[in-house]
């Protein structure tokens, strides 16, 4: 396998976001992951995820209802508990023995984290991503509206981690002509995740301290990219002189071969709790992402190449080369465990 599409079977052994938590009130709700429909529903405080196909007549369970903490198929009333066990077949009458084949295989793991519902269809090879800012009360949390993009998750992840496109794609926002040279950096690899840290100087005209002469215009910041397989990314910017941290997370849901749902969140501790400034920051990140989409939408391929000889990489691309290596490792590990 030399490329990774949104429906690659190895991705079954990973965590994926599939909905925002507030989209799953009671359910049943249908979501798509890796080209397959799943039904999500709440029983008590827990969210459950089952394949969205009744084993009887293959009707979508999401067209049914929630009855006593189980999902009931809308066609013949078969009921399924959160663990996939079939607990009622009305046509057989009360107390009938139920065929073992009537049960469905639930997702191996379900979790609610970072305002999202996550599922791993098979036992996940690695943990959920780590976002310490989420649990830090000094941070304001600003989610962007989830958006659906006709693109490969692998290519969107590649674009988020890429450091050489700012002056070309982001001329209207973060990119400046002086940014063309990508400074040397190294990648810290840890299992199926990695990080890159770079400290550089930049112009900070938005700093109110610059206007009043408290601080110089050219300041220093540390950028840290963290990635964890398959499509979880976090970019943290720490401002040395002006202080404060600006973090952006990007989580991708590979829905079908041609569709991806994008969840982005801004986490800031430098906006004095001002909801208006947070809304501005969210809108700004949306503009940056919209610039990315202009070019991402023009791709005619729906896969990220994992074969490193398929593209030309330079030393500026170490981070995205590592992305391909980790995903190739995911593919190899999933195949070994199968």
């Amino acid at each position, binding site marked *: 396998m030399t490329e990774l599409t949104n429906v690659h079977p190895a991705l079954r052994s990973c965590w994926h976001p599939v909905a925002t938590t507030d989209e799953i009130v009671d359910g049943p709700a249908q979501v798509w992951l890796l080209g397959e*429909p799943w039904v999500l529903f709440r029983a008590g405080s827990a969210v459950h995820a089952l394949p969205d196909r009744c*084993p*009887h*007549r*293959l*009707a*979508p369970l*999401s*067209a049914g209802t929630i009855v006593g903490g189980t999902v*009931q*198929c*809308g*066609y*013949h*009333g078969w009921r399924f508990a959160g663990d996939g066990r079939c607990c009622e*077949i*009305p*046509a*057989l*009458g009360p107390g009938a023995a139920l*065929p073992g*084949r*009537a049960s469905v295989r639930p997702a191996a793991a379900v979790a609610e984290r970072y305002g999202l519902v996550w599922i791993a269809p098979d036992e996940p090879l690695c943990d959920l991503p780590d976002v310490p800012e989420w649990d830090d009360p000094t941070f304001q949390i600003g989610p962007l509206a989830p958006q659906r993009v006709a693109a490969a998750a692998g290519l969107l992840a590649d674009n988020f981690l890429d450091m050489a496109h700012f002056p070309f794609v982001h001329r209207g926002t973060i990119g400046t002509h002086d940014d063309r040279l990508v400074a040397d950096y190294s990648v810290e690899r840890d299992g199926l995740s990695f990080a890159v840290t770079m400290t550089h100087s930049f112009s900070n005209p938005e700093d109110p301290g610059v206007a009043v002469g408290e601080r110089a215009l050219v300041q220093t910041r540390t950028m840290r990219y963290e990635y964890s397989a398959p499509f979880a990314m976090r970019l943290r910017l720490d401002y040395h002189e002006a202080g404060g941290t600006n973090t952006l997370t990007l989580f991708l849901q590979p829905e079908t071969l041609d569709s991806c749902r994008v969840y982005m969140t801004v986490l800031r501790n430098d906006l004095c709790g001002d909801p208006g400034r947070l809304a501005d920051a969210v809108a700004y990140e949306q503009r940056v992402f919209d610039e990315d989409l202009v070019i991402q939408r023009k791709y005619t391929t729906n896969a990220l190449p994992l074969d490193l000889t398929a593209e030309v990489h330079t030393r500026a691309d170490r981070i995205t080369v590592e992305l391909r290596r980790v995903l190739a490792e995911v593919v190899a590990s999933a195949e070994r465990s199968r």
Partner: protein
Amino acid sequence: MTPTAARAGVVDNTTPALARSWHAVARSDELGHEPLPVRLLDRNWTVERRGHRIIAGPDVPWALEERYGLIWLAPRESSAPLHDFPEWDDPTFDRAYAATVRTPVSAAQLVDNFLDAAHFPFVHAGTFGVGESAMVQDRGVVREGWRVSTTFDTWYRNSDDPLVATGEHPEIQPQQLVKIGSASFGVLLRLGFPVTGATFAILFCCQPETRRCTRVYKLLARNDLGGDSTRMRDCIRHEDRILREDLAILERYERMELHTNLRVEVHTRADRLSVAYRRLLGELLAVENGQRPGREGSTA
């Protein structure tokens, strides 16, 4: 089971073996002396009246016939006969067409749904479905040639018996359903009502037009209306509502197809008629693939 093996037994609206069946392609009242374009199994045909005959084009089908107010076409040699619907020609019966509708649901799924007796309390709660009909009991499934049939003894909510309003009859009444499914993409349903003594026969036929489009014809014949056109109009409206309830769940399916491989779905003893119908379709596929023809007259 490999994915390829599962695909092998799939029936949808473009399955070539379906050309070996009779299909309703138009209502008689739609047909004139101009060629009427119709679609069947993703192919274009025309049908028209010429004198007292009807003819089809552009090719000559194996058979073409007008019966029960419908035009029937069998593209290739069919061993499955046309449906028997004696009530349609019985003068003691009032007859009518319910709405002719189009849906993306495949013909095989629609026939399967019409044969099924286990969905009433869930799909038809808004019309005739009642909790009393949840448990399904058939009197044994019979296979005769290219037909499968059984009788279900069940319960329903009677919404058109005038004696329910007066309290002389209960609202929830027993009913006897004789269901005859045919490889010719239709079902004859004969409803018997012990409380009122009436008989109501429905011929339900599905024309697989294209991969994502089926046309549904529902012909009604009942012997308890005494020519009362208002009651027949109410009956038609009721039958249209019942079909819409079925389509509401069936149109939620992602894939419009039916599996003749019995391992793909889970079947229970309440599904014996559905299983027999899948076997019938499986044999139609086998004939197409040059395998031995179906067993005749055996009990499923």
